[in-house]
């Protein structure tokens, strides 16, 4: 017996060290393969019937393509449509299509497919954002390479939503099993999936456009931020699509093996206030809370100082962006005065937040700073998404909440009085409607007014804009710096 323990230890060591040969090849098997780590896994591949960001993140622009796409500056640029014209009454769109495009099942892509895809949203899709396509009146097939879309009323929002999953082009021959077998025109096809682990994309050999540099892209799904970071450190992946633990960024920056790419996103971290209920139905109280919070200090605590102070629901990549972060400077004295004026000096508010790290740390700052002006808050973390969605979002049972709003151009939610903000402004609703139907110039002008109005009303306190931080091995290039579309765009990635 005596000798057995050292022997065992030696055997274990041998096994472990013997395996180290060639270990760097664990996932990135060759220069043609790239492995990207994500936190949220697609439940299935059917983006027409399943909500959530994970499916378009993996498939849009990579497997599915639309007529148009968003570039990293937030501009609408051609994709399957070579070009398009808009009629003077802004209701008729004529799209000239790319020639020689084929779906991954071999079927050619024509104007018939445009008609099929756009109308199918109204009839077969069940996800909740599909209503932006209701404005489509009919689609004409003018020629195989020419589709004409006629809207029932002018809508700028419609063309924009074509850059999202709503604009994805399908073939009638490729929709039999959308949940498992997506068929698109994109540069990649889905080759394999291991649930709870990964999705493997392979380059589409018949792709019509510029061929992607990586033949194989493995999308690895790793929920825990630490495990995600460890996978990059230990060669398990090549890219972290978005950092969720900001404290780890300096460590990557200090390491030559890695690069850190930081841009902006559409994700406004918002202190929501229940506008419909006392005491927050008084604009002075909402303004007081906005004056009372030092957003710079909050950003430092909640997200290591990374991110942008914007002061409105508009990210810098939207055409109507203005920096409104200084409208309510940090002035506790003014906050106290406003509270006294509103006879709201003995407040006790429920701060009901999702149990997510950024919300928990931001809530503690909000709580202590509000306490300085005499407003007591009780922090109640709710299980996200299930409980938060039910109690705060649906039942509006809250005073304050903190959550990131990730959808593009979600400033329009301030035009819906039934939305959980409880914000009801006829002027804002009017301006939003005008912006949607007007010329692009009018749209920009009107949207600026909307942003200023909701800011003046302190309809919410926009704490900061989430940064988009990608960490990758230094050899990988071509990232889309600003995350403004729904897609994690793989098409430009290439080895250095």
């Amino acid at each position: 017996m005596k000798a057995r323990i050292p022997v065992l230890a030696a055997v274990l060591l041998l096994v472990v060290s013997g395996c180290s040969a060639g270990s760097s090849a664990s996932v990135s098997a060759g220069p043609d393969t790239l492995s990207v780590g994500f936190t949220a896994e697609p439940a299935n591949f059917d983006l027409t019937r399943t909500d959530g960001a994970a499916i378009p993140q993996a498939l849009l622009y990579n497997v599915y393509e639309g007529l148009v796409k968003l570039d990293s500056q937030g501009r609408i640029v051609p994709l399957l449509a070579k070009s398009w014209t808009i009629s003077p009454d802004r209701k008729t769109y004529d799209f000239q299509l790319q020639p020689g495009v084929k779906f991954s099942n071999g079927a050619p892509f024509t104007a018939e497919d445009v008609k099929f895809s756009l109308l199918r949203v109204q009839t077969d899709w069940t996800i909740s954002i599909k209503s932006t396509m209701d404005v489509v009146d009919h689609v004409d097939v003018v020629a195989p390479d020419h589709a004409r879309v006629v809207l029932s009323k002018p809508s700028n929002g419609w063309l924009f939503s074509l850059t999202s999953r709503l604009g994805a082009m399908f073939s009638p021959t490729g929709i039999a099993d959308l949940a498992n077998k997506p068929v698109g025109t994109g540069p990649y096809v889905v080759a394999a999936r291991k649930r709870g682990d990964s999705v493997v994309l392979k380059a589409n050999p018949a792709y019509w456009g510029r061929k992607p540099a990586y033949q194989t892209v493995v999308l690895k799904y790793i929920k825990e931020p630490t495990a995600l970071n460890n996978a990059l450190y230990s060669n398990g992946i090549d890219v972290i699509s978005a950092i969720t633990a900001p404290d780890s960024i300096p460590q990557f920056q200090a390491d030559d093996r890695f690069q850190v790419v930081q841009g902006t996103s559409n994700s406004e971290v918002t202190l929501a206030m229940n506008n419909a209920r006392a005491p927050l139905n008084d604009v002075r109280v909402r303004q007081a809370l906005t004056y009372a919070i030092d957003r710079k200090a909050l950003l430092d605590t909640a997200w290591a100082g990374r991110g942008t102070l914007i002061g409105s629901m508009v990210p810098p990549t939207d055409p109507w962006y203005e920096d409104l972060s200084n409208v309510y400077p940090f002035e506790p004295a003014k906050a106290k005065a406003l509270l006294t004026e509103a006879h709201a000096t003995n407040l006790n508010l429920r701060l009901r937040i999702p149990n997510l790290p950024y919300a928990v740390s931001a809530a503690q700052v909000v709580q202590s700073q509000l306490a300085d002006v005499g407003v007591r808050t009780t922090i109640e973390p709710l299980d996200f998404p299930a409980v938060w969605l039910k109690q705060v979002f649906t039942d509006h049972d809250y005073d304050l909440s903190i959550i990131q709003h990730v959808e593009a151009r979600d400033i329009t939610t301030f035009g819906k009085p039934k939305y959980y903000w409880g914000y009801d402004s006829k002027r804002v609703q009017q301006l939003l409607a005008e912006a949607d139907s007007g010329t692009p110039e009018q749209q920009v002008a009107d949207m600026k007014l909307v942003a200023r109005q909701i800011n003046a009303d302190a309809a919410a306190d926009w704490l900061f804009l989430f940064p988009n931080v990608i960490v990758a091995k230094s050899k990988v290039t071509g990232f889309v710096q600003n995350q403004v579309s729904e897609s994690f765009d793989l098409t430009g990635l290439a080895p250095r």
Partner: protein
Amino acid sequence: MTARVLRRVAIFVVSVLVASIVVFLFMAVLPGDPAQVALGVNATPELLAKTRAEFGIDRPLVTQYFDWIGGVLHGDFGRSYVTRDTIGPQLLDRLGVTLWLVGAGMLVALVIAIPAGTFAAVKHRKAAGAGVSGLSQIGVAIPAFLAGIILVQIFAVQLRWLPSGGWTPPDQDFGEFFRGLILPALSLGLVQGAVLTRYVRSAVLDTLGQDYLRTARSKGLRPGQALVRHGLRNASVPVVTVLGLQLATLLIGAVVVERVFVLPGLGSMLLDAVASRDLLTVQGIVLVLVVGVLLVNFVVDVLYTVLDPRLRGS
């Protein structure tokens, strides 16, 4: 003996049924609406109602329960609310991963505990024996996930010898499969090994004091020989009991370790399903886990009778 086994089978079936009801009721009172979670922040009341009807969660609880358990008895676990896929095949897939993990963890534990525990017992009056006992005490105090995090830091992040996580099926690439299993199995097994070491030590100590061992030694056998030829079988009875109990703990430890090492097993499936209120999936997983634990108890019970002839009469 047949009556004994039959009684055990009856207890087994009733336990599973009771567990299924408890699980079902727990899911029903959990706050959060599966339809709401599936639809996200843009859900309209109409769409919510439609989705609830589609999931069948607008029906009375009793109907839902009997539908579910009836399906399960026919091997049909239903369709997931979230993935819209049949749950049964998914469960089997994930169970495979968890069984590999638990099996490998148990192997590591035994490989550590049997020699170390025996050594500590034989040398219990010497410093070396006390040393092994002390080490096992420390091991007991370390949770499996902490062991996992430390192992990852050393062998994956610093030395880059082994992957920090992820799963390769054995039929796809056995080398990768094995390399990926080493760290999770160690983090589960080291802790379990420490626990088991203490039981093995006391079982062997107990056996060493028995008359028949003294007799064996008086016939000229050395202590080690006597122990191996006559003592180990007797010492194994209490160890098997503990092993059964430990398997349940190991399953729970596996849930956490799967998260640390990003393994697509039952544990990580369970956590995801709870977060997304994928009730049918949660019910299915918990049922499988309950059946697993009950099966282990059953097998341990039968093993007793094999190991200890004295129990066969009763």
